[in-house]
């Protein structure tokens, strides 16, 4: 019903945060937006001895660098959804962010928090995998980069180790002529996805596919890239037949769990449907059409 007692630290610098985390390895949780951690503590699903509130660290803000957009860990979902600049540069992230929780959750939730928490159904994990790039992690010996493709290790597990903090995400901007697509199947407007798919399709002058990148959330113990997307689509024209092939391939490839609420079969089917829809939207946008 309520979080159990814990020690609380509110460092002013990344170095202080690292030090605080390092002093209580395995027993400390990072508090960013709090929209996952605090409810989990209230539900009794998390009971850290120490909470390190990183709200004062200067980890917000975004920057355009050569071919990438650099986002601070404390970039709020609301900014991804509503900032003109970010919507323009990272439209896939903007679309996905709109589906995270509800507006109050989006006002607080952060990119760094979502990626570090690594809920397998979280939309932003799939978004990051689709763009590609690097996650920058700060630790006692300085900063290190981890390719996004290697960041997610498993169920709520990532490359961020004890005593470390995710500080930045560098997302690769796709080439010109790339459209984005997002599709999610959820029970209600706000809910975690039964399955979600994120797609970037780069389209050639003749409308055929030059490259396709596709990632899925909710169908494994982590968000996953559907590696076959490029092979299936490169050089092809958009057609119902191709979309049906992608849909079947995705449904066959994923191996979700059955739980009390949803069967594995339906989840796989949902993943296929989302993949085809996200791909189609991305393709159409890449061609300059409405999605």
């Amino acid at each position, binding site marked *: 019903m309520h979080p159990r007692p814990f020690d609380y630290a509110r460092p002013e610098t990344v170095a202080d945060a690292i030090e605080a985390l390092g002093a209580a390895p395995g027993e400390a949780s990072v508090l960013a937006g709090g929209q996952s951690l605090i409810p989990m503590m209230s539900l009794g699903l998390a009971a850290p001895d120490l909470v390190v509130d990183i709200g004062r660290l200067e980890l917000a803000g975004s920057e355009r660098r050569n071919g990438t957009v650099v986002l601070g860990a404390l970039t709020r979902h609301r900014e991804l959804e509503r900032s003109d600049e970010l919507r323009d540069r990272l439209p896939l992230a903007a679309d996905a962010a709109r589906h995270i929780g509800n507006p109050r959750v989006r006002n607080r939730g952060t990119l760094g928090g979502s990626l570090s928490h690594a809920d397998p159904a979280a939309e932003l994990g799939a978004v990051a995998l689709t763009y590609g790039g690097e996650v920058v992690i700060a630790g006692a010996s300085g900063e290190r980069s981890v390719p996004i493709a290697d960041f997610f290790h498993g169920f709520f597990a990532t490359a961020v180790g004890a005593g470390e903090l995710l500080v930045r995400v560098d997302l690769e901007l796709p080439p010109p002529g790339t459209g984005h697509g997002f599709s999610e*199947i959820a029970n*209600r*407007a706000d809910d975690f996805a039964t399955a979600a798919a994120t797609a970037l399709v780069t389209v050639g002058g003749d409308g055929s596919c030059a490259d396709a990148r596709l990632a899925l959330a909710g169908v494994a113990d982590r968000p996953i890239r559907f590696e076959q997307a490029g092979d299936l689509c490169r050089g092809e024209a958009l057609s119902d037949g191709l979309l049906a092939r992608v849909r079947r391939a995705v449904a066959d490839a994923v191996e979700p769990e059955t739980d*009390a*609420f949803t069967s594995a079969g339906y989840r796989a089917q949902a993943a296929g449907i989302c993949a085809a829809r996200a791909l189609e939207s991305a393709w159409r946008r890449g061609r300059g059409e409405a999605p």
Partner: protein
Amino acid sequence: MSGVEVRTGRRVVGSELARHDAIEKVRGRTVYAADFSLPGMLHARLKRSDYAHARLVRVDTEPAASIDGVIAVYTAADIPQNTVWVDVPGQTMEVGALKARSNVLADGVVRYHGEPIALVAAETEDAALAAIDAIDVEYEPLPVLDDPERALEPGAPQIHESGNLLAHWELEEGDVETALAGADAVVEDTYRTQFIDHAYLEPEAGVAWRDTDGVITIRAATQVVEHFRDVAKILELPDNKVRLITPYVGGGFGGKEDMTVEPYLGVVAALTGRPVRMVWSRQESLLARQNRHAVRMRYRTGADAAGRLVAMDIDILSDGGAYALLSALVLLYSTTCAGGPYRCPNVRIRARTVYTNHTPCSAMRGFGGMQVVVAYEGQMDRLAAELGIDPLDLRRRNFVDSGDTLPIGQPLETAVELPALIDAVAERLGPVPEPSAPRRAVGRGYACNLQPYGRCIWLNDWSSAWIGFELDGTLVIRIAVPDIGGGQASSLIQIAAEVLGVPPERITIHIGDSALNPLTGTTTATRQLYMSGNAVLKAAQELRANLAPVAAELLEVDEDRVEFTADGVRERDGERAVAFPALLAACASVNVPWHVLATHRAPKGVPWQADESWRGQVFPDFTYGCHAADVEVDLESGQTRVLRYVAAHDVGQTINPQSVEGQIEGGVAMGLGYALSERLVFEEALNLTGSFAQYLIPTAVEVPAIEPVILESGEGVGPFNARGIGEPPIGPPAPAIAAAIADATGVRLTELPFTPERVAAAVGAPGEEESDAEG
């Protein structure tokens, strides 16, 4: 359109008045149960069972008691009277079969996941939470019964010594088998409904203290002020030493009809002498508080070629969970309504409710009259398809009418406006819209229902109200009515204003206090407007009748020319007027009191006998409705979007149209959740639905704009001929959605809720079988 009267001249009743409590609520000033606090109050929490069925080998409370700030830890042995027989709440007449045994704390055995085992009282909430964690329980698991079909088979785990049959109702009219054999069409199907949580926004809460003269006073969110008697039994106190106050309640829907926090608050206040607050978390509310019954209904329905029903064979099996609570009464409602609003000469109904290790089931809006709508409407649709008759025409050919009798012997004495209701709905709908995208299909479905309002007539229902003037001409109503958000209190103000002329803003109503206000019975069973409304009406009319002669004398006119207005009395169409203070002074001088205590008694009926041949009137009256839904089905994902929803009910007379619309819209929304997304999921009787994120009530996105259509036939047994409207709108949505999905896809679903996965599987999209967990 028969039976519709044109009414003129009402001043307040029938007008769109903003409810008096709404202003306080929108300002956040209303003091709900958990908003109240007393200095030095303790915090109470419950330790709940982790098992669905187990012997309690050892309950070690010592580690908890020794925590700093923990004042007391109680188990069953500490409760003065741990096991009580609870009667149908609020009634003075006992009906043996409807009494249910209730435990305050588990005694040696736990029978459902979340059953309370121990009660902690501590100085702080944190200490109480720590104490709960520290209590050490050793369980010896017992075989779990989670399948109601198995409950009555030999060898099934026995939940209680009396066996697993909780209650049953059986009746047969005519000769069903012969009629079915001779029918031109017979359709048969099995309908399954799910466990549902009330999911009101306000979790269970209350504060209790020991007041003057040792009266244990409990201020709790409840629908039943009369529970003070049940708490008194538990505490082994005389009834007049317990007082129950109900503040405005943040939603009830039947979930606060049985006791929730009341007994525990009473125990702590009585045994420690200190004030205490108890607030349940949402998660424990979802986990362990009584639900709506899950029901399996097997129907065979036969008709002749012209579509007239000739026979119905109905078998209902309801999962009552681990304790009886109100299950027997809920089943009676199902039995009464099982045939729907249709004439049928040959009817057999066999209804049983059984014990299992699921969470105990009890009252919820619709109360057994709701689940059967899915079945009887589904059968009508099937029959229509089988006979090639339009579904609405088929219904028209079979509707009951005023003067008919339902199979259980219930006479229908007021207007049945179902044909007009169908017309009203059909008139609103235009053409079915086109699908919004490829691989989507749109369909339309209708459903009709009847739902009782008012309690069983052999419960001797009554309701009392006190009305009186203050010397300055303002008016006071005192009535122990619980207001759970449906405008219970404000409609009474409107009624008093109508009769006495005093404007609503000059009327104060004191609600829900068992010691200080006249008792008026439960806010349940869509009875409150009917009962307390009639009581207030009676009191107001008597008061007016007492004052009128005095007024006539003062005004020097005949009594029939006296008018009651905002400030006093005046001569109709004349000049003379006397302000209330002067009128009251005149009353004083002639010993005429300016207050009245009145009691309204519902009609009595022949009490039910435990006998299959018993037939008779069960309810005072019914409310009828017709709804229609347009849905769009995503043929790939199975997601169903409700595009449009129209809901028509005959309410007799509206007291407050905005409130009536609100009840219809809210009831429909709840019905849509029931149809499409809500369910408690159990696995071997362990409740897996532990968080509000997992219990899917509809949001503003899932619920479309609902169009209520109000018909006023002028016939109803409530005040000003009103009918109850709290429960009726929740019945038709699920069958309307089922019919709409069938219209869109050709597939008829019979298991609720119609989740995307189930719709997708039925429509034929490839996929695995449904998961094994119950849902």
